[in-house]
Structures are given as structure tokens and as C-alpha cells.
């Protein structure tokens, strides 16, 4: 793990804001603009070889600034080693897409966009994935009510019986 921290500090010292280890999990806080460079380095470096992406999640810290966090869980098949990358995103800001590094990131990023409205620049198809295309609002945001904004009502026209 020390090896990782040193390498990261050496190669991308501007990009890495903080490295902390808690409960045997290492989390690296990355500057949003440099996330692709950091990921590319972690993926291509022969010793580190983080070649597998476990998932990308969004978190909404409503009331804090910056409001959103995007969390990347990456894994190295070679070293059997997990790493968490985190970027903090203010509202209405976009994050560069890492789908060029791991193709598997494509759907994960679309899901984050669908649920939080965080746009990923450079993504091949930045559109909704789980909700219908004409849906309004981003369901997993904390200010989105559990039952949705519009209670679903079927008009008389839809119910002919």
C-alpha cells in the first residue's frame, strides 16, 4: 500500500488531494479534473495494474459543499487489491468519463447520471439507463421524495372500463 501512495504522489502529485486508510480500505481523494489521468496511470502501471472496475457510485451529501461525491471502486487482479477513488463534485458540474480506461465503466456512469444527474463528459452515450427517457428529476437525490414528485394517476382516458 505504501508503494501505491508513493507512486501516486510521484506521478500525479497535483491530482491526489488526500490518501487515507480506514478499516483496511484505502481511499484516495482525487481532483475531479484529473480523474482520467489517475485512472489511466493506475490501469496501465505494471506493478499496480488496477485492471478491473467493481463499480461507480454517487453519493449526495445534501447541505454540504461540494454536494456530490462520485466513488470508484477499482481492483487489481494481479495483486488482489482493492482501491477506492473519490471525487467531490459541486452541483451542475460534470466529471470526465473513465469509460475509455475501463469499458465496464460505461453503464455505471450512466446509472450515476440517471440517479443523481451528474454528467460525465466524454461519455459515448450519456443518457438515462434505468428510468424511462422522459422521466423528470433524479430519484436518488436527497431532495427527491421517496414517492416521486407526481403521484402516478391514470386518467379516465387510460381506463376505459
Amino acid at each position: 500500500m505504501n508503494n501505491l501512495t508513493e507512486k501516486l504522489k510521484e506521478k500525479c502529485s497535483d491530482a491526489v488531494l488526500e490518501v487515507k486508510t480506514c478499516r483496511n480500505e484505502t481511499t484516495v481523494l482525487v481532483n475531479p479534473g484529473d480523474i482520467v489521468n489517475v485512472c489511466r496511470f493506475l490501469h496501465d502501471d505494471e506493478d499496480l495494474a488496477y485492471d478491473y472496475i467493481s463499480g461507480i457510485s454517487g453519493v449526495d451529501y445534501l447541505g454540504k459543499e461540494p454536494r456530490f461525491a462520485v466513488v470508484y471502486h477499482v481492483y487489481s487482479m494481479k495483486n488482489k487489491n482493492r482501491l477506492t477513488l473519490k471525487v467531490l463534485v459541486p452541483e451542475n458540474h460534470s466529471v470526465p468519463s473513465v469509460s475509455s480506461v475501463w469499458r465496464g465503466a460505461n453503464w455505471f456512469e450512466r446509472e450515476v447520471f440517471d440517479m443523481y444527474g451528474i454528467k460525465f463528459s466524454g461519455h459515448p452515450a450519456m443518457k438515462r439507463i434505468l428510468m424511462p427517457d422522459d422521466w423528470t428529476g433524479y430519484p436518488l437525490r436527497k431532495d427527491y421524495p421517496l414517492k416521486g414528485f407526481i403521484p402516478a394517476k391514470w386518467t379516465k382516458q387510460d381506463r376505459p372500463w
Partner: protein
Amino acid sequence: MGEKEFLISNRIILTSLTKITNWARRSSIWPMTFGLACCAIEMMATSASHHDIARFGSEVFRGSPRQSDLMIVAGRVSRKMAPVLRQLYDQMAEPKWVIAMGACASCGGVFKNYAVVQGVDEIVPVDVYVPGCPPRPELLLQGVMKLQQKIDREKLRI
């Protein structure tokens, strides 16, 4: 030869048209394969060897709505799926029936949220509600039997 002997010797049964039609309809309800979530697995278990829905004449699961009489809504219906479900229902030929299988299809179940339709009766008319999360296969069989009783009481429409 008396009337009775004539009927017996020529193997003739007299019944009303309503009765014979209802008997035919209820003995071969063909369901549509419309598995959505957990309940679909129990629906499969109902049609498989242990529970054997063939005993009630409903083992012929059809892929096409045009060939089926019964839509078993097995599982939660999301807002994205709701228009599809309605379209499939409209494509089914009369007479048609709907069983809402499980809590989610009946009333939304544990998912009282933005994504799930709170009861499939918002979209299509439901004949039998089967409770459970998911219902046991026996319960689905009972639902089918209830539907058969309901069909038996139907009036023939001309």
C-alpha cells in the same frame, strides 16, 4: 325407443350453451409467460414437476399474447414497464382474465416508492388477487381454481 334411451344409445348429452362453453374455457386456461420478478420463479415452480399446473389445464404457457387467455402478472410492475403491460393486455383476445400474483402486483408490496406501480389494477382490470411475497405455488394454484369458479359463473355474451 323412449327419449332417454335414444340419448343414451347415441351418446348424446344435453346441456346449456353457457355451461358447456364455461366448462371448456375454464378447463384450458392458457396463461401467458409474463414473468417479471420473484413471483415468476414461483410461477415456474408451479408449472414444473413438483406442483404441476397441468392438473388444472393451464400448463400451456404461451409466449404470444394472441394465443393466451390469462395474464399472470408475476412480480412488481415498474413505471417503465406499465405501458408495455397495458399493450400486451390489449393484444390478448377475448375472453381474457388477469391474476395479480403477489403483494407487489396487488398493491405495490414493500416498495412504496417512485418506481413501482402501486397495484397492477391501476393499469388492467384484475380478476383474482393472490397474496404472498412471493406466494407459494399452492397459493397460485388456488388462485387459478378461484378463477375457474369465477368463469363458471359467467354469462355467455352474444
